[in-house]
């Protein structure tokens, strides 16, 4: 057990079995095994969600067909915020416990988060043109979402600018934690300032104000995005593990076994 632990893991962690998979070496094959399930789930759910969104859901009375963007826009916007929080969580774990895998997870999540943020912005802009008559307005939610994109990009840029991977993990981790303040701002911006953008219409407490099919479509799409995000992060973390551990014996053995 101890032999498989990263040498710089916190000594306290070595005794805990629950942290077994915080070792890159044990996590690598596990990630490889579960990855295909998530990938397939993403494909299947995505197909179902898009079918509901574009064929089952009724045309909107006010907005016509344009509103169908909602099935991508809203789940993407949710994911963009959620992934950031998860990324910051892993970054914090990495900073506090000095576990390498947590920092690798944070690094692996960033591009996916940036992708969803970009998607939310892009679909939002596409939607804004017919509904508000402008691609872009400087409203609080839109601005804070744009800032979220820049935070993701800044995280990626800072990480790649620092050569020493350990230092890069730590510095980028600090940045990720600083950026967390932006997430509640995005989420509550429509409540705190009255803006052009739609307020929350889905909440856990109140009754949904949307048609059930629309809600179902959005929920399925959100699930699909979830699965995709997990699959992409796992795939990326696997390659990060190989790259970082290329000096170690187990990677050499693994490479030999592939031949």
């Amino acid at each position, binding site marked *: 057990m101890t032999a498989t632990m990263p040498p710089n893991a916190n000594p306290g962690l070595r005794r805990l079995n629950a942290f077994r998979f915080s070792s890159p070496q044990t996590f690598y094959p596990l990630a490889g095994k579960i990855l295909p399930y998530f990938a397939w789930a993403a494909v299947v759910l995505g197909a179902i969600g898009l079918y509901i969104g574009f064929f089952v859901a009724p045309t909107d009375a006010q907005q016509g067909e344009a509103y169908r963007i909602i099935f991508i826009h809203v789940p993407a916007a949710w994911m963009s915020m959620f992934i950031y929080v998860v990324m910051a969580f892993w970054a914090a774990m990495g900073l506090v416990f000095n576990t390498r895998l947590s920092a690798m997870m944070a690094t692996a999540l960033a591009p996916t988060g940036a992708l969803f943020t970009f998607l939310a912005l892009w679909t939002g802009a596409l939607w804004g043109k017919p509904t508000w008559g402008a691609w872009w307005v400087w409203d609080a939610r839109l601005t804070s979402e744009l800032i979220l994109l820049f935070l993701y990009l*800044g995280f990626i840029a*800072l990480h790649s600018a620092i050569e020493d991977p350990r230092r890069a993990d730590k*510095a980028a981790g*600090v940045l990720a934690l*600083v950026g967390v303040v932006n997430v509640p701002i995005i989420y509550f911006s429509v409540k705190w300032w009255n803006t052009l953008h739609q307020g929350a219409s889905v909440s856990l407490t109140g009754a949904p104000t949307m048609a059930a099919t629309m809600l179902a479509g959005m929920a399925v799409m959100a699930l699909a995005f979830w699965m995709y995000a997990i699959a992409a992060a796992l795939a990326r973390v696997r390659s990060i593990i190989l790259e970082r551990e290329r000096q170690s014996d187990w990677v050499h053995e693994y490479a030999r076994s592939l031949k």
Partner: protein
Amino acid sequence: MIKTLRLVIHRDLLLALRRRADVANSLLFFVIVVSLFPFGVGPEASLLRAIAPGVLWVAALLAAMLALARMFAADYADGTLEQMLLAPAPLTVVVLGKIVAHWLLTGLPLVALSPVLALQFDVPADAIGVLVASLALGTPVLSLIGAIGAALTLGVRGAGVLTALLVLPLYIPVLILGAGAVDAAAAGLDASAHLMLLGALLLGAAACALWPVAAALRIAVE
């Protein structure tokens, strides 16, 4: 602790006194940016008045951003930063001292000079008051947020761009609120909501910025 704070501020002001030109630097940059516009845009008064709040705030933001490079880099290069990390006082106090000194040297002069420049652009008197207030509340936020970017990119290849990339998105709200306040005042509206938000930003930044800066400095020196 107060002693260390005073020491750090005193040291940075003394250094600035020795290199007076360095302080003049960001002030001069501010003045240059603002004054070049009439050359570029042409001398039409109404046009100039319309863009004045934007030009002044953009110039202040750029001046603050460029001054960030000087915040920790020199101390990092000559080994003083290591000594600060090894000092018995908590690092956050040292950081606070450096940020305060930085604002005194780069933010305060802008605030003080802005009315004169605003007059050039024929900004109405009420709006000038709001301009000064918005800069007085906004420039410390720029220094606080900027310190995080400056510390994170210390000793990194191409630190300049990276700092800009990290810091600018966080600066945009300050710019929108600041220029918005002046615009509102120039249009005869009430600017106090904008100013209150700026004040809230300042409090938030002061409460949250010191820890990440200290952490980033520790990482940079490793």
